[in-house]
């Protein structure tokens, strides 16, 4: 399974990349929402993990853009951000994020959330 990690901070991309690769996921990276859109077009991924605060196109705008495009309207999106604001979380979920976790976060929590989202997707498809 391939996951795209979208974050403007190189350190965070590396750390999240380690978490995912050590659990057997393939990872591609993007620096911001625009970079993610470009790479999505050429690289098929199964899930997106995105930060909120990024230049040029932030996480919220990325989710909004993806959900308005029929190609990406169903792709699972997990927001991983430092923003611990209830309103931001609510907005992200309303825009279409499937999950929202607050940094700092461990590999176990990320893995757990990924499994949770995938389970929800499968149940949705089954029903």
């Amino acid at each position, binding site marked *: 399974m391939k996951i795209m990690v979208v974050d403007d901070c190189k350190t965070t991309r590396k750390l999240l990349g380690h*978490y995912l690769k050590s659990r057997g996921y393939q990872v591609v990276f993007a620096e911001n929402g625009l970079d993610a859109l470009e790479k999505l077009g050429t690289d098929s991924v199964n899930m997106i993990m995105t930060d909120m605060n990024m*230049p040029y196109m932030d996480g*919220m705008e990325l989710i909004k853009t993806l959900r308005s495009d029929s190609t990406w309207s169903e792709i699972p999106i997990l927001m991983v951000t430092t923003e611990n604001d209830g309103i931001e979380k609510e907005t992200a979920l309303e825009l279409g994020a499937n999950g929202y976790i607050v940094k700092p976060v461990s590999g176990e929590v990320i893995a757990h959330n990924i499994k949770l989202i995938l389970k929800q997707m499968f149940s949705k498809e089954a029903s």
Partner: protein
Amino acid sequence: MNTKRLNKLLSDLTHKDSSRRRSAAEALSEGDERALYPLIKSLKDENLGVQDAAIQSLMNIKQEATAYMLLPLLRESSFLRNTAMLILKEMGKIAVPLFRTLLTDKDDDVRKFVLDLIYDIQYCEYPDELVYILSNDSNSNVRASSAKALGILQFRKAIPQLIHSLNDEEWVCFSALEALAMFNDDKSLEHIIALLDSPSETIRFAVIETLGKIRSQKASTPLIERELKADDFERKLIIKSLVQIGTISSTPHIRETLIEMLKEDEWEDKYTAIKGLSNLKVNEAISPIIDLAGSLESSVPENEDKIEFIKKAIYSIGCHKNLTNIITSPSMKYRGKTIALEILGELQCKEAVSVIINSMNSDYRDVRRASIESLIKFESDEVSKCLMETINHTDSHVRKIAIMAMGKIGAVAAFEPLITMLHKEGYSDIQEDIIASLLKINATLFLSRIDEFNDDTRKCIEHHTADSGPGVKC
């Protein structure tokens, strides 16, 4: 900017035509603090082009007032926040003094944002305060950001606290490792090495990478010991770090791992593998490395660096039959052969001469061209003879190089054949090369026969002999 013009532009910023608003926003980059607030408002324009122009203009008005007016946006919606950060980063040092008071802001995110900005700008006049944050802030994201910032600032006084932060949460520890890697400091080494036994895989990975970046020989033994118990992923990381440190040993499995690493997607990994293989002078790696270079489209400028790096790596391995065999290998594509030919010429691998001569008749134009350019680097009778025979080659580019080479080596035996060629050569640039070579071989004799040629050719010869400055074309 005069007030009249400014007012006109400010008025246009709210025009119903978005192209007018954009032009106004662009023009206001020459503005002063009177333009700031309207430009900041334009960041919320519905048109992306207007937003973009406002961003660029704000970046251009590099004044403390601009930074001052942007800071409140750090508390706004995500787009405004991120845009403000983008502009503040671009503003650079001038903004940094204003961040100081925000380091104690009650909002965790604001504290983190300014630390991230300090990291991006790589400047801070009050680094001691960052050390305090690293040890005392309640929020681990903030502590992690301060660790990163201290690393990039190279603030050595922070090293003890960074070492202490290795015992902090994983997120902070990771950033502290990154920071310590930037100091290249032996003092922190034993503390970092101790983490090779961390129960956290992620920390172990980060430690291995950090030791590679620090490049201290002292890390070699613990890394080699760790390699024996590591799984595949960790072993690859260790080998990469050992390559960077320069203590990689040439065991079969390390050579195999490095050759495998050539297939990794990330070029950082490929570079490390190539470096390791060239340091170890692994001859069996020559072909896969050249193949890698050959897979790169040479007309894409960003590939030039990669190809150059690869060539240097092969130069350091030196002449070997594996390099020569590439020229005749049916599986190697033409681009790879071209690069191999170039390298053989640079290294003057004498044992490759006959193979290079044969490849001048390749079906591939690039290979023919590379063959002759490689050959002219050798000085031998065999090569001179071959070059002479090549002056009539059907490929004009090959012909051209052979002709130039004749002039360069002053090949007397080529004089008459060149005279014959000058009568029939169709390409004007090759005619010039023939003339230049003939003049080098024997100017007196050549000029004494000038009447043998038609008017155009004579004029060309006269241009070459007259002192008429550089770059004269026939």
